[in-house]
């Protein structure tokens, strides 16, 4: 059985009372050897998707400031590092291992990283939202722990060797005197097996990127060999003794409540152990998984009628009529006046549907709920918050709950991982044995926390010279539940079915004035405005000083939650499309027109580099002399500073549009990306490629559908994905390694600009502007037919 723990780490864990599958019944708060655990209280804030809230998309927890919580060195010099940010396929396990190896000056293979286990690792909240690099690769947390440890070791060596620190060098886990290398001591001899008993030192100096030999290099991912050879232990592969298998039975329609369960309908089926009911939660536990599947299908449960759903055909209009919670991102107060006095006004409305995470593997968890304690193996993004909400769900003290992260399928946000952890916990509590639950494809898709639907109205006012003088944004988006965070198990379907409410929706209208620091965390404000609140400094990336950004959140009939580039993607689609519409109306080149209204040099740089590399032909859109039938080509550009401070990206998309069939083929995307110092160039390239390709799928294909009472997107025929045989663009990455900057995230940036660039390229090819995602062949054909 291969795993990511080497023999050393496994032995260390065993000493501390755990086995790899966490079978120990011992008190897992016991401290042993060099392993120290400091618990921090789970943060009270939950993840609201209010567009104006001043927070990162995921809470970063309140991690320990004790060095021993992050770094341990054994007598033979092996380094164990603990992180609260975990691997989801984005390469973070390897990048963090590189970070520790670099800061501590040890070879890569001497570092063992332990990730996301509430018994072992610091509370870093949620791994999400392109926050892992900013959080752990700058000057706090894991990066600071590495630097603190290195400087502490040098101090200790200086004392031991009687050589001043400045005359020492650390390399390969050995500290020696520069003038006399025979004066040397190993890390193992200095501190091995003992605690540092130091705080993280805010004054500890990171190594400069120009000196990196491990970080910043394209180290091959440490987990890929096991993944490629099928030996990798996903959460789906966790096995514990006496493990049973559970399957859920969800309501048939939205809002339906449980009226009765006829347990006798399944109890005599082979292997069935128990039917578990808690309010509207229903599950069946059996000896073997197929027995559980069959029993769940056969179980006679009676449900009330659902609460009914608004008609999908008029849903965007429906959104505008609901009670709202309103917020200003910015409001200069003079937008109406500028619009009234403008030489010209361009306005448009953009629509973005609910979309799904739709992970390739359905969610799975193994829960072992016993009176002495609870252990859950989960693919959650948030082990510490999940510990808290699981405790609430089960009615046990949080200190009795341990959440062990094990990788699931790529999640792209809050997929079914927390939901299924609750499913398994409830079933295990009911039967008193460990239970493994995996969701069916239908249950996963019907009850996910979808990415928000948006309808966005925008107006741009121009002066006589064609310069933008005002930008007006007003949008409606939908919300229900979200991340459970630390307190709200009802934010996902299982908690809700078990009787916990989703976090309350509190209407508030009108919006209070914008105040405090400008916060573009949801990219509600376009790149082209100054982002000035009151008399504060302009904090946006643009030059347009008359700006109004007003967001309305309305209650959603379906659960919603962060889906890769949440709100940011929908908003950027609208901004970059409108910018292009304005440029076209002025017969201005789209690249030049953007540069004219930007002031942030790094944003201008990615725009310029993407255009140069793509050999952008400078001219207005649409492409002159394109025919009106057959296949035509076009190019478009879009750019963003993700979240206003977390990654610069621009992409040029080149498309073919078959005007007879309406099929759009994205041929190539050139992406320029600046996320500060790069920790692993292949890792960031993989994220750029993945972001663009998944962005193509979301732009051309994906849309949640529903009927009068239930979601109808429940498998891969009814929710269309981008299969491997499909046309995907060649993705060319231009990676700008900004070694002097703050480290930013890169997992959600490229996807943010895909839809805008593709829509702009379609316009360039055909003269037709599409304002509703996805750009299905039907929509494209209808728009082409409506061409004058």
């Amino acid at each position, binding site marked *: 059985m*291969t795993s990511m723990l080497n023999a050393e780490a496994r032995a260390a864990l065993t000493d501390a009372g755990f086995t790899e599958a966490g079978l120990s019944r011992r008190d897992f708060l016991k401290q042993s050897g060099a392993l120290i655990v400091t618990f921090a209280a789970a943060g009270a804030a939950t993840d609201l998707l209010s567009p104006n809230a001043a927070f990162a998309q995921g809470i970063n927890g309140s991690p320990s400031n004790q060095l021993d919580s992050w770094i341990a060195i054994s007598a033979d010099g092996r380094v164990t590092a603990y992180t609260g940010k975990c691997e*989801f*396929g*984005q*390469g973070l396990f390897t990048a963090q291992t590189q970070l520790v190896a670099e800061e501590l000056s040890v070879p890569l293979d001497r570092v063992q990283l332990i990730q996301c286990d509430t018994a072992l690792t610091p509370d870093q909240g949620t791994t999400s939202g392109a926050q892992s690099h900013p959080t752990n690769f700058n000057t706090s947390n894991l990066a600071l722990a590495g630097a603190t440890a290195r400087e502490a070791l040098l101090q200790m060596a200086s004392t031991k060797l009687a050589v001043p620190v400045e005359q020492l060098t650390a390399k390969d886990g050995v500290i020696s005197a520069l003038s006399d290398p025979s004066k040397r001591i190993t890390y193992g001899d200095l501190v091995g097996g003992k605690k540092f008993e130091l705080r993280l030192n805010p004054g500890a100096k990171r190594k400069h990127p120009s000196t990196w030999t491990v970080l910043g290099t394209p180290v*091959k*991912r440490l*987990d*890929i*060999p096991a*993944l*490629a*050879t*099928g*030996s990798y*232990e*996903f959460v*789906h*592969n966790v*096995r514990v003794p006496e493990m049973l298998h559970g399957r859920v039975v969800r309501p048939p329609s939205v809002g339906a409540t449980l009226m009765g369960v006829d347990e006798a309908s399944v109890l005599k089926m*082979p292997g069935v152990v128990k039917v578990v009911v808690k309010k509207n939660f229903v599950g069946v536990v059996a000896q*073997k*998984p*197929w*027995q559980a*599947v*069959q029993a769940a299908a056969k179980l006679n449960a009676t449900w009330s009628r659902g609460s009914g759903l608004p008609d999908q055909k008029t849903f965007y209009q429906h959104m505008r009529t609901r009670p709202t919670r309103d917020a200003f991102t910015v409001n200069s107060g003079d937008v109406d006046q500028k619009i009234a006095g403008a030489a010209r006004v361009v306005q448009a409305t953009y629509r973005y549907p609910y979309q799904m995470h739709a*992970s*390739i*593997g*359905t969610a799975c968890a193994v829960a072992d709920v016993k009176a002495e304690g609870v252990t859950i193996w989960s693919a959650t993004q948030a082990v510490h918050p999940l510990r808290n909400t699981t405790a609430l769900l089960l009615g046990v003290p949080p200190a009795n709950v341990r959440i062990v992260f094990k*990788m*699931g*399928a*790529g999640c*792209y946000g809050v997929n079914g991982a927390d939901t299924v952890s609750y499913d398994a916990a409830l079933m295990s509590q009911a039967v008193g044995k460990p239970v493994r639950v*995996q969701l*069916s*494809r239908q249950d996963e898709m019907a009850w996910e926390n979808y990415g928000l639907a948006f309808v966005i109205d925008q107006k741009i006012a121009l002066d006589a010279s064609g310069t933008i003088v005002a930008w007006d944004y007003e949008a409606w988006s939908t919300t229900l539940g979200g991340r459970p965070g630390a307190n709200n198990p009802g934010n996902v379907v299982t908690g809700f079915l078990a009787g916990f409410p989703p976090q309350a929706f509190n209407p508030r209208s009108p919006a209070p004035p914008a105040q405090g620091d400008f916060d573009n965390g949801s990219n509600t404000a376009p790149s082209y405005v100054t982002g000035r609140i009151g008399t504060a400094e302009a904090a946006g990336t643009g030059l347009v000083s008359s700006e109004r950004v007003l967001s309305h959140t309305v209650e959603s009939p379906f659960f919603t939650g962060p889906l890769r580039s949440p709100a940011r993607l929908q908003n950027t689609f609208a901004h970059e499309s409108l910018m292009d519409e304005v440029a076209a109306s002025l017969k201005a080149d789209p690249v030049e027109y953007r540069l004219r209204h930007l002031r942030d040099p790094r944003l201008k740089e990615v725009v310029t580099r993407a255009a140069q590399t793509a050999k952008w032909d400078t001219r207005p859109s649409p492409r002159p002399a394109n025919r009106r039938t057959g296949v035509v080509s076009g190019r478009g550009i879009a750019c963003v500073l993700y979240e206003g401070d977390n990654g610069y990206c621009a992409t040029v998309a080149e498309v073919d549009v078959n005007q007879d069939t309406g099929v759009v083929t994205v041929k190539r995307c050139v992406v320029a990306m600046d996320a500060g110092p790069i920790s692993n160039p*292949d890792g960031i390239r*993989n994220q750029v*490629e*993945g*972001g*663009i*390709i*998944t*962005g193509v*799928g979301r732009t051309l294909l994906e849309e949640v559908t529903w009927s009068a009472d239930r979601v109808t997107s429940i*498998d*891969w*025929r009814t929710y269309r*994905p*981008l*299969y*491997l*045989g*499909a046309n*995907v663009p060649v*993705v060319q990455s231009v990676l700008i390694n900004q070694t002097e900057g703050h480290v930013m995230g890169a997992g959600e940036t490229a996807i943010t600009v895909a839809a805008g660039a593709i829509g702009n390229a379609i316009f360039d090819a055909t003269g037709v502007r599409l304002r509703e995602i996805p750009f299905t062949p039907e929509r494209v054909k209808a728009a082409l037919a409506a061409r004058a």
Partner: protein
Amino acid sequence: MSVFTLKVDGRSRTVDVDPSTPLLYVLTDDLELRGPKFGCGLSQCGACTVIIKGQPVRSCSAPVGQLDGSEITTLEGLGTVENPHPIQKAFIDEQAMQCGFCINGVIMTAKALLDRTPNASDAQIRQAMSGVLCRCGAHQRIFQAIRRYMQANAQGRMA
């Protein structure tokens, strides 16, 4: 429950299960293999693919009762971390995945094709992969890995 004998990755295995049990559950639960994955249970995504008689089989939809005596190759049967199969090595060299959950379906489907048609055209590869899903967007690298394997194979045959 009935007794079935399967030859899995060269080893004879005997299981006592309901004949309607999809092969996927037998492989992953009874035999504790990690390669094939549950993605949909509907033959729509390919994550569960194994190879039987040279064909890619979606094990989520293949009742074990119909497979008594079959010889089955799974991802773990191709190679190990210490000694990967050349096709697995191609995926490692190209770093051709992100979460890696789809990779079983990708590699087994591609291998089944290339074992039969070593010089498969791009169109044939895309046709074969048209029922396999990757949600992380590793498409470009996956095709690079397949081509890399084909080149290594071609060189091997010429040597």
